[in-house]
């Protein structure tokens, strides 16, 4: 019987993630979270792909401090507890992913790159302020068209944009419809 356990905060968060089948250890290849941080460490987006309590979320503060302390031109990978952290800085935002050990880090860099390109393309030169003031529309909704459960949903550069536009149209149509007076 395959099971997975997440141990408590005081012990070792992120360690003890086991996936046993007939006694063998099986790796889970998964992205655990994607966070967007400002240079001062403020969260601009947090997407968790695994159930985590609020306290456990706060533990990642330690990780964000590590990332923010990295000198420029560093390697984009670092180890935190037993997760691999892949991060990339775009203008004033740090994009950080927490991965299980088996994942291909170079590909994750490409995932981050693609996400930034999608934001840029759909919203036109998006900056941190855009993401702050329109977080729900401009960061999360697009993210949900690109990643689901930590896996890539769509690899086409154009398909995500098309889906967003159509959803927006639907939303506007509904709003328009709702704001029409009823006779």
């Amino acid at each position, binding site marked *: *019987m*395959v099971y*997975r356990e997440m141990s408590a905060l005081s012990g070792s968060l992120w360690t003890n993630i086991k996936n046993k*089948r007939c006694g063998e250890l*099986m790796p*889970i290849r998964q992205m655990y979270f994607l966070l967007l941080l400002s240079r001062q460490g403020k*969260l*601009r*987006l*947090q*997407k*968790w792909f695994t*159930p*985590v*309590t*609020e306290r456990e979320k*706060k533990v990642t503060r330690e990780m964000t401090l590590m990332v923010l302390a990295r*000198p420029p*031109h*560093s*390697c*984009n*990978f*670092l*180890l935190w507890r037993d997760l691999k952290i892949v991060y990339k800085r775009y203008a004033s935002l740090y994009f950080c992913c927490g991965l299980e050990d088996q994942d*291909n*880090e*170079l*590909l994750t*860099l*490409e*995932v981050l*790159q*693609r996400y930034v390109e999608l934001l840029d393309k759909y919203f036109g030169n998006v900056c941190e302020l855009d993401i*702050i*003031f329109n*977080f*729900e529309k401009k960061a*999360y*909704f697009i993210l*949900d068209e690109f990643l*689901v*459960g930590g*896996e*890539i*949903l*769509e*690899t*086409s*550069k*154009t*398909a995500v944009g098309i*889906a967003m536009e*159509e*959803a927006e149209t*639907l*939303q506007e149509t*509904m*709003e328009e419809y*709702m704001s029409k007076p009823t006779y």
Partner: protein
Amino acid sequence: MSPSVRLQEMIRVIRGARTQGEERGVIQRECAAIRAQFRQADNGTRSHNLAKLLYVHMLGYPAHFGQMECVRLIASPRYNEKRVGYLGAMMLLDEKQDASLLITNSIKNDLSHSSQYVQSLALCTLGCMGSAEMCRDLAPEIDRLLRASNSYIKKKAALCAVHIVRKVPELGELFTPASRSLLSEKNHGVLHGAVVLITELCERNPETLEQFRKAVPELVQIMKGLVMSGYSPEHNVAGISDPFLQVRILRLLRILGRNNETASDAVNDLLAQVATNTDSSKTAGSAVLYETVLTVMDIKSESGLRVLAVNILGRFLLNNDRNIRYISMTSLQKIVQTDHNAVQRHRGTIVDCLKDQDASVKRRALELSLALVSAVNIRSLMKELLLFLSSCPPELRAHTTSGIFNAAERYAPSQRWHIDTILHVLTTAGGDVRDETVPNLIQLITTATELHCYTVHKLYRALIADISVQSLVQVACWCIGEYGDLLLRGECEETEPVQVAEDDVLDALETVLQSHMSSPATRGFALTATMKLSTRITHNVDRIRSIVSIYGSCIDVELQQRAVEYNALFKKYDHMRYPALSTTALGPVSSTAGGDLLDLLGGLDVTPGETRSYHVTRPGKTLGPNYRLFMTFVSHSHPPQSVQLQMKAPSGDVIPAHGLGQVTQTVLLNNPNKVSLKMRVRVCYTSQDFVCQDTVQIDSFPSPAW
């Protein structure tokens, strides 16, 4: 005023707060307003209020009171409200929250909604935060959607199925048929989802794995198509067509080919093709190449292909991009055991990476270098490692020192090299070594009998240069105490001769004793060493006597106890001093320990005709923590009636380790008829939970004794 402007207005106000307190105040007011709004009837602003709450939540403030609102909004017929409701559910309602179950029904309904965008919201949410219960409930729906005619829905259903399989693996069987047929899709999104799903199914069920091995040729075709295809603007990344899909297919092929000749054979050509045709000048290509290498190393590939893979990794090592060097070393680490020689060929480059500025690269290079140490390269590699140690980042020092010690222990070409290496490490990073280093080094020095003179000279010179590194100072003190006579003699084969006077040595030890930098343990070492020197020097015994008596009133209890005992040795038991302080043998578990006891009892200066008392001291020079000691005198032969034996209680029952103390037990033997006696002395003790025993036989007591 449009409600969404109010959201932005709130954000602006929060950002405008100048202090944390001000921010908290604003947020408290807003939350109170939001709460009030939630309690009211539907007024068209619910989604915007929830959005505000989500913003506040992201700043780190509690937002649990919004959970029920999420549930309500998800159930709303309006798309924009559903959208924000589902977003709220993903942010506030993980499976640990009770409220999460309440949305199961809404999700179920939405999965059959006429609008694919509503369906997609439900699929996305279920795929992100669905609990095991919810997954069990809704799995049949997902399976139905996997067979839907709509690519947009199919790809989302595939990833939702992935999540379900992770939560409830038995449900994998449900999805197997549908996922097989998805492989014939043209849409990359669906194909990608299918490959991820199949990977997940195969990893959890060996039967499914068997089944999907038959799909290997199909996967190979798809992969070939991607590699050889022309430019596709939709999927092109730096010249690679859909690297995301390529990597996932390679990973699936790896799982299918593992431990299976047939599947591996079918894939060999493809891997060679990808390895040679992929342009790795950008990250995308390198990612694909990296996955290829991992696959080659994991399946039963031809040896030629393996060599190609290791060479690719070697090429990566020379890449300017730090990331690529890093992952190259990660991979080499995985294969260093199985393909040791192949990795050894790149040792030079790996060692160069030790000098890289980046901490992550350094760490990888260190791990790999330590794995590459062998009897052949130990000397040159150790030079590099010692160089690395002198400039390595603090977080790596402990690991480096223990790695160096392990390597030195396994492959030391000579004892002198070994001692030199350890001393070098202690001088450079003595503060970051493990506790066992001191006793281990002491043991090493003891066994290297020809090098005693060399070692004591070297340690003496290190001691007078710097007394801040405790581990080094402790070993130096011990060595000087033990082999001080060799130090004072002056000549030494292995190093240049230097004149060391008795006063110089005592000065050095006193400096350690008095220094604030010395830890209590270190001072213990220094005091014992000073005491030992009393039997090895000739002129300054009085000075030693005075040092020892001063410390008899030292505040540190350990030191005081020791000094008092040493004082006693001087005053009352001066005849015991030489035997007690002579060169100690190896640790208690060795067979020479008996000889040690004999030393203690021999050479007694006794006056006949009286009851003699024999003091047995056992200097605690053990390698572990405390001893429990009890002594029994056992007669070799049935003792004559006239001989009386009286054993007094020992002065203590625990001997501190590292020569920091001793236990004395007095035995009174009354032999008025001066019968010749033989005795066997057995010392039983426990050391680190092992019960040990030493026995020595005394065949004759010195005749003047009686």
